[in-house]
C-alpha cells in the first residue's frame, strides 16, 4: 500500500474500471458506502477529530482531492490542521441525483457536503446558505455568473469548483483533409462544415440526444442554441417564453444539423461519454463538449485522435455565441452538524494551490479566475483560454426546482422533431405548454 | 398373428450384459413366460422384442422376417408395462383409445371399441376417471385394455401383476389366461413368480444373468430341470438340494449327507458316483414308510396339505403330505425318498446328471 491509497482508500480497480468503461457503466454499478477515512488515525485531539462526509462523483467526472489523484498531501495536512476526518462516498454521476432525492426525502441525509449539478433549486430546502460563510477573497476570485446555478431565492447555497462550459471540440486532421483552416464561426459555417466533413464513413457532427433530461441532456444542449439565437427560457415571473422565433430556430438548427451530417447514433447516446467515444475514435469531426473531457480525449491510451483536437467557442447564432453551464458545485446540507467546517473544506477545495493541481493533474479546469489566468495552467490546459473566452458570453442552463421534469418534457419533444415526427414549431409549442403546466403546478 | 424368434440377442449396458446370447422361439399363438429373478434381463429382452431398445447384436424376427429396423409401432406389438405406464392426464377412455386416436380412426369407432374393451375388462363404469382415481387392479386392467384394443400380432406383458395383492393376482391370472384363450395372440409374459409362470404358460423360458437357462413346457421344467438353478427356481416349496456323496458298497447304492445315508435303488442313481448334489421335491419325501428315523423340526399345515420339515445335523428336508397331517416337533419319524423323484446335479457346473451319467 502506498501513501496515496492511505489517503484515498477507494478501490482503485473500481475507478480504473470506470475510466475504461468511460461512463458506460455509470449509473449502473450499485456501490456501497465507502470505507471510513484512515488518514488522521493516531493523531486524535482531546475531543477527537470531527467527521465530514462527502457525497461526490467518480472520475472521470469532476471530483475533489482524495477521490481523484491530486493535492493529496495538502488534503491530509488540512485534515490534521482542522482536526477533521473526511470520508467520501463517490458514485457514478448518473446515480447522484436519485441518491440525493431519496436521502433528502428520508429527512436524514448522511452527508455534510454533497456534489450538485444543477439541482440546487430542487433541493434548496435541504441546503445550507453558505454564501455568507465563504470568504470575500474567494468570492471575488470567482466569475459572478458561476453563482447563478447555485443560487435560489436569492440565497447562495453552493460553490462551483470547476469552470465547465461547453465549447467546440474538433478534429484538426479531418479539417486539414477537408481543406478547412479554421473552426466554424457561425451556424452557417457549422452546417457547411458538417456537410463537408461528412464523408469516408465519417460524420461532421456528433451529439448525445438519447437522454432528454438533466444537465448535458437533449434539452440542455438545445438551451445553448436557444441563447445563441437570442432566446431565453423564462420571464421574470418564471413562466416559459421560449415558444418564440429563437426557440423554434434553435430546434430547427438541431434538425438542420442532423440533416447536414450528425452521426445517426446520436439519437441513442445517453451520455457525453458515448459521444466522446465516437469523436475520439475519429468517426466524427466535431462535437460540443465539457472541458473535463479535454484531457481524456487527448490521452493516447484512450483516444485515437490524441493531439489532433482543436477547441473553439461555439459557433454563433443570430445573437452571437453562447453555451450551457455544467454547474459542478459543492454544497453543504442542512443536516450537517458542522456547517462551518464543511464550508471550510469547500474553501480548501477551492484554494488556489488545489485549483491549480486540479487542472494540472486531472484536466478539470479551475473556477478561480486567478488560476485560470496562470501561465502554467494555460500552457497545460490548452483549452482553458477558449473556455474563458466562451465564458464571456451567456452560458445559462436555466436550472429550476423542477429542472429534470422540465428538461424531460422539452427533451422528449426535441427527440420527436429530430426524428421528424413533428415540426420544430410544433415541438417547441408542445414543450412550452408542458413546461407551463409544470411550472405553474410548482 | 406372428411368431417371434430371438437369434443370439446380446445387449450390453457398459460392462453389464443384460442379455447374453438369448435364443428363443415363440410359436404363433403360443403363450411363453420369461421367468427369472430380479435383474436377470427379462425386461430388457421384452424391450428388444418391442423395439424400444436396440440389441447390441443379434436378430429379432417376426413372422420369419427380421424386424430389427422396424419401429415398435410397425412391429405391431402391444405391451403391458411393469408399472402400467398409464397417461396420468388422460381419462381411462382416452388411455385405452389413445392408439386409435393416433391412427386417426373415426370418433365413433374409437368410442365403440373402447366400450367393448371396457366391458370385457369390467371398466365400463370408470371410463371417465383419471388413472389416479382407480384401484391398483383397475389400473392394471386399463393397461391390459390399452394393449388389447390394438388387436396386435404379439402381446408383451412385463410383470403386469407385480403391484397387486395375492388374491387379485390370482384373479388377474385367470383373466389373462382367458383372454389368451379367446384371442389366441402370441404372448410373452415376464414374471419372477414361478407359480404364475407354471399356471399360465404353454412354455417357460427360465433366465439367469442374461441368458436362457432352459426352455420347456411347465411339466418339462418342473420334472426335468436341466440345471440345479432351474430346479431350485421352479416348484413350491423349493426343492431341497443336498451337498453329499453317492456311494456304492456291496451292491448297495446310498446317498450320504452328513450322518444320514439314503438308500437308493441302483437304477435310480446315475452310473457315475462320488461328489454329486442330490435334489428331491417335497412330494417325493415319504414319512413313516420305512427308512431312516429322524426328528420332526417344523410343521406347516396349509389346509389341503401339510409341510413337515425334518432335520439332522445342519440339514433340513421338507415333505409334503396331502390333507391335514398331525405331527409335532421333536416327534421321530422314518424318512424314505421316492427314487423316481430324485435328481442329481454335477457340483461344479450345476448341470443335471442323467441316469446314464451324461450331463443334461
Amino acid at each position, binding site marked *: 500500500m502506498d501513501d496515496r491509497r492511505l489517503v484515498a482508500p477507494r478501490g482503485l480497480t473500481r475507478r480504473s474500471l470506470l475510466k475504461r468503461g468511460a461512463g458506460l457503466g455509470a449509473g449502473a454499478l450499485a456501490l456501497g458506502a465507502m470505507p471510513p477515512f484512515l488518514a488522521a488515525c493516531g493523531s486524535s485531539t482531546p475531543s477527537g477529530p470531527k467527521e465530514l462526509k462527502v457525497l461526490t462523483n467518480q472520475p472521470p467526472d469532476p471530483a475533489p482531492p482524495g477521490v481523484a489523484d491530486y493535492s493529496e498531501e495538502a488534503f491530509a495536512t488540512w485534515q490534521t490542521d482542522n482536526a477533521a476526518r473526511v470520508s467520501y462516498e463517490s458514485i457514478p454521476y448518473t446515480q447522484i441525483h436519485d441518491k440525493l432525492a431519496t436521502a433528502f*426525502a428520508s429527512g436524514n441525509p448522511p452527508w455534510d457536503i454533497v456534489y450538485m449539478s444543477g439541482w440546487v433549486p430542487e433541493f434548496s430546502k435541504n441546503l445550507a446558505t453558505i454564501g455568507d460563510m465563504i470568504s470575500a477573497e474567494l468570492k471575488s476570485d470567482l466569475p459572478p455568473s458561476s453563482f447563478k446555478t447555485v443560487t435560489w431565492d436569492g440565497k447562495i447555497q453552493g460553490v462551483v469548483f470547476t469552470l465547465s462550459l461547453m465549447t467546440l471540440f474538433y478534429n484538426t486532421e479531418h479539417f486539414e483533409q477537408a481543406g478547412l483552416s479554421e473552426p466554424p464561426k457561425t451556424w452557417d459555417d457549422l452546417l457547411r462544415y458538417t456537410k463537408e466533413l461528412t464523408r469516408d464513413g465519417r460524420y461532421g457532427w456528433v451529439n448525445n440526444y438519447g437522454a432528454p433530461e438533466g444537465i448535458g441532456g437533449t434539452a440542455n444542449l438545445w438551451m445553448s442554441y436557444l441563447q445563441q439565437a437570442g432566446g431565453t427560457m423564462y420571464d421574470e415571473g418564471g413562466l416559459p417564453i421560449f415558444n418564440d422565433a429563437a426557440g423554434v430556430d434553435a430546434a430547427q438548427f438541431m434538425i438542420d444539423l442532423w440533416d447536414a451530417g450528425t452521426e445517426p*447514433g446520436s439519437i441513442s447516446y445517453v451520455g457525453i461519454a458515448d459521444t466522446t467515444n465516437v469523436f475520439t475514435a475519429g*468517426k466524427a469531426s466535431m462535437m460540443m463538449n465539457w472541458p473535463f473531457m479535454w484531457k481524456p480525449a487527448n490521452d493516447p491510451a484512450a483516444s485515437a485522435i490524441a493531439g489532433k483536437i482543436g477547441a473553439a467557442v461555439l459557433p454563433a447564432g443570430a445573437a452571437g455565441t453562447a453555451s450551457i453551464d455544467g454547474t459542478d458545485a459543492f454544497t453543504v446540507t442542512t443536516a450537517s452538524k458542522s456547517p462551518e467546517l464543511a464550508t471550510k473544506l469547500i474553501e480548501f477545495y477551492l484554494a488556489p494551490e488545489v485549483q491549480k493541481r486540479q487542472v494540472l493533474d486531472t484536466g478539470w479546469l479551475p473556477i478561480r479566475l486567478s488560476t485560470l489566468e496562470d501561465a502554467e495552467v494555460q500552457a497545460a490546459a490548452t483549452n482553458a483560454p477558449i473556455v474563458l473566452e466562451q465564458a464571456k458570453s451567456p452560458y445559462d442552463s436555466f436550472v429550476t426546482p423542477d429542472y*429534470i421534469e422540465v428538461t424531460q418534457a422539452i427533451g422528449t419533444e426535441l427527440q420527436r422533431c429530430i*426524428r421528424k415526427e413533428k415540426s420544430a414549431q410544433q415541438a417547441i409549442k408542445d414543450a412550452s405548454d408542458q413546461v407551463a403546466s409544470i411550472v405553474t403546478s410548482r | 398373428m406372428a411368431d417371434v424368434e430371438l437369434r443370439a440377442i446380446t445387449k450390453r449396458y457398459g460392462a453389464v450384459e443384460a442379455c447374453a446370447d438369448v435364443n428363443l422361439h415363440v410359436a404363433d399363438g403360443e403363450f411363453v413366460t420369461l421367468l427369472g429373478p430380479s435383474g436377470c434381463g427379462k425386461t430388457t429382452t421384452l424391450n428388444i422384442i418391442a423395439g424400444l431398445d436396440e440389441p447390441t447384436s443379434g436378430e429379432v424376427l417376426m413372422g420369419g422376417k427380421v424386424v430389427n429396423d422396424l419401429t415398435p409401432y410397425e412391429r405391431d406389438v402391444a405391451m403391458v408395462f411393469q408399472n402400467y405406464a398409464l397417461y396420468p392426464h388422460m381419462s381411462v377412455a382416452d388411455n385405452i383409445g389413445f392408439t386409435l386416436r393416433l391412427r386417426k380412426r373415426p370418433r365413433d369407432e374409437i368410442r365403440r371399441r373402447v366400450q367393448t374393451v371396457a366391458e370385457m375388462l369390467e371398466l365400463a363404469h370408470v371410463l371417465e376417471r383419471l388413472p*389416479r382415481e382407480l384401484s391398483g387392479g383397475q389400473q392394471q386392467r386399463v393397461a391390459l385394455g390399452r394393449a388389447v384394443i390394438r388387436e396386435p400380432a404379439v402381446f408383451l406383458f412385463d410383470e403386469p401383476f407385480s403391484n397387486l395383492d395375492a388374491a387379485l393376482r390370482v384373479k388377474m391370472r385367470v383373466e389373462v389366461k382367458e383372454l389368451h384363450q379367446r384371442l389366441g395372440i402370441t404372448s410373452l409374459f415376464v414374471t419372477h413368480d414361478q407359480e404364475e409362470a407354471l399356471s399360465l404358460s404353454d412354455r417357460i423360458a427360465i433366465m439367469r444373468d442374461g441368458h436362457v437357462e432352459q426352455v420347456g413346457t411347465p411339466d418339462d421344467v418342473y420334472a426335468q430341470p436341466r440345471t440345479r438353478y432351474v430346479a431350485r427356481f421352479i416348484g413350491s416349496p423349493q426343492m431341497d438340494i443336498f451337498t453329499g456323496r453317492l456311494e456304492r458298497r456291496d451292491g448297495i447304492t446310498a446317498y450320504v449327507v452328513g450322518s444320514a445315508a439314503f438308500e437308493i435303488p441302483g437304477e435310480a442313481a446315475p452310473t457315475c458316483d462320488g461328489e454329486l448334489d442330490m435334489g428331491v421335491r417335497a412330494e417325493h419325501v415319504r414319512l413313516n414308510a420305512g427308512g431312516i428315523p429322524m426328528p420332526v423340526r417344523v410343521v406347516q399345515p396349509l389346509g389341503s396339505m401339510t409341510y413337515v420339515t425334518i432335520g439332522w445335523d445342519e440339514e433340513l428336508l421338507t415333505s409334503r403330505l396331502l390333507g391335514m397331517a398331525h405331527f409335532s416337533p421333536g416327534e421321530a419319524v422314518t424318512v424314505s425318498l421316492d427314487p423316481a423323484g430324485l435328481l442329481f446335479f454335477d457340483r461344479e457346473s450345476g448341470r443335471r446328471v442323467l441316469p446314464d451319467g451324461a450331463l443334461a
Partner: protein
Amino acid sequence: MTIDPGAVARPTGRSYLARRRRTGTLLVLPALAVLALILALPIAASLALSLMDADTADFRFGVFVGLDNYRTLFADPVFALALRNSIYWMVVEVAVVVVVALWFALLLNHPMGRWSVFRIILLVPWALAPVANAVLWKWIYNSSYGILNFLGTATGVLPDPVVWLGDPGLALNALLVAEIWKEIPFITLLLLAGLQNVPRILYRASRLDGAGPWQTFRFVTLPQLRTTILICIVLQSIWALKSFDLVYVLTRGGPANATTMLNFLAYRVSFQFGNLGLGAAVADILFFVMFLLALAYVRVFRPARAAERGVA
C-alpha cells in the same frame, strides 16, 4: 391420553384439537407480525403515499389529495404509452421466453444435449449481473462501434449500420431481445426440471401406441408440463413487469418515451421528478397488476399440490 401442548393450553375442557390449534396460532403469531411489518407496512405506506401530494424535498409534509394522482395519471399520455409498452413487453417477453426456453429444454433433455457443458453455457446470461448484461448490450447495440452493426455490415446482412436504440419501435424490441436473452436460461432450467419429471416410461408407452415425435410432444410432454409452463408464464410475467436495468442503462426510457414502461416511469416520476405521490400511484398500479398475477400463480400451484396428495 394426549400430551398437554405446553403450559399455554391449560386443560380447560376444550378439545385437544382446539388447544392444538390455539398453540399453533400463538407460535406463528410472531412470524405473522414480522411479515406484516416487512410486507404489509410498505404496501400500505405506498398506497397512502399515492393519495398524497408529496415531494422528495418535503415529503413528510405531504397533503392528502384523494385520487388526484390517479386522475393525473389516467389523463397523461406518457402513462398510457408506458402502460402499452409494459403490456407489449410482458406479452412478447413471456411468449418468446417460454417458447424458446421450452425448445432449449427439449434439446437439453435429448440424449445428445445432455452434455453438461451445454448447461453451463446456457447459464452464462443468467449468471451475469443485470447491469453487466445491460452494459454488454449497450456495446452490442452501439450504432457506431457496436458488434451487431459490425457483423451485420461485414456479412452484408445490413446494407448500412442501424441505430438500434434510436428508432422507437426498434429500440423497444432491441431491449426485448436483450431481456429475453437474459431471461431464457432460468425458465429453461425450470422446464428442464419439469421435463425430467415426466416418467420415461410414458414415452415408451406412446411409442408403442404409435405416436410420432410431434404427437408425443403434443399428447404426452405438453400435458405433463402444463403446471410447470403455467408457473413459468406467471413468474415471467411478473419479472417482465419489473424490468428496469436495460431501460435505465441503454435508453433512459427514450427515444421519445418509446421504451418507457411502468416500472421505469415510477422511478422517473418519484426520484427524478421528485413527485413521490404520483410515483407511488404508478407503482401501486404496477403492484396491483403483479398482485393479480401472483394470485394466478397461487391458483395454478394449488391444484398441483392437491393432485400430489391425491396420488399419495
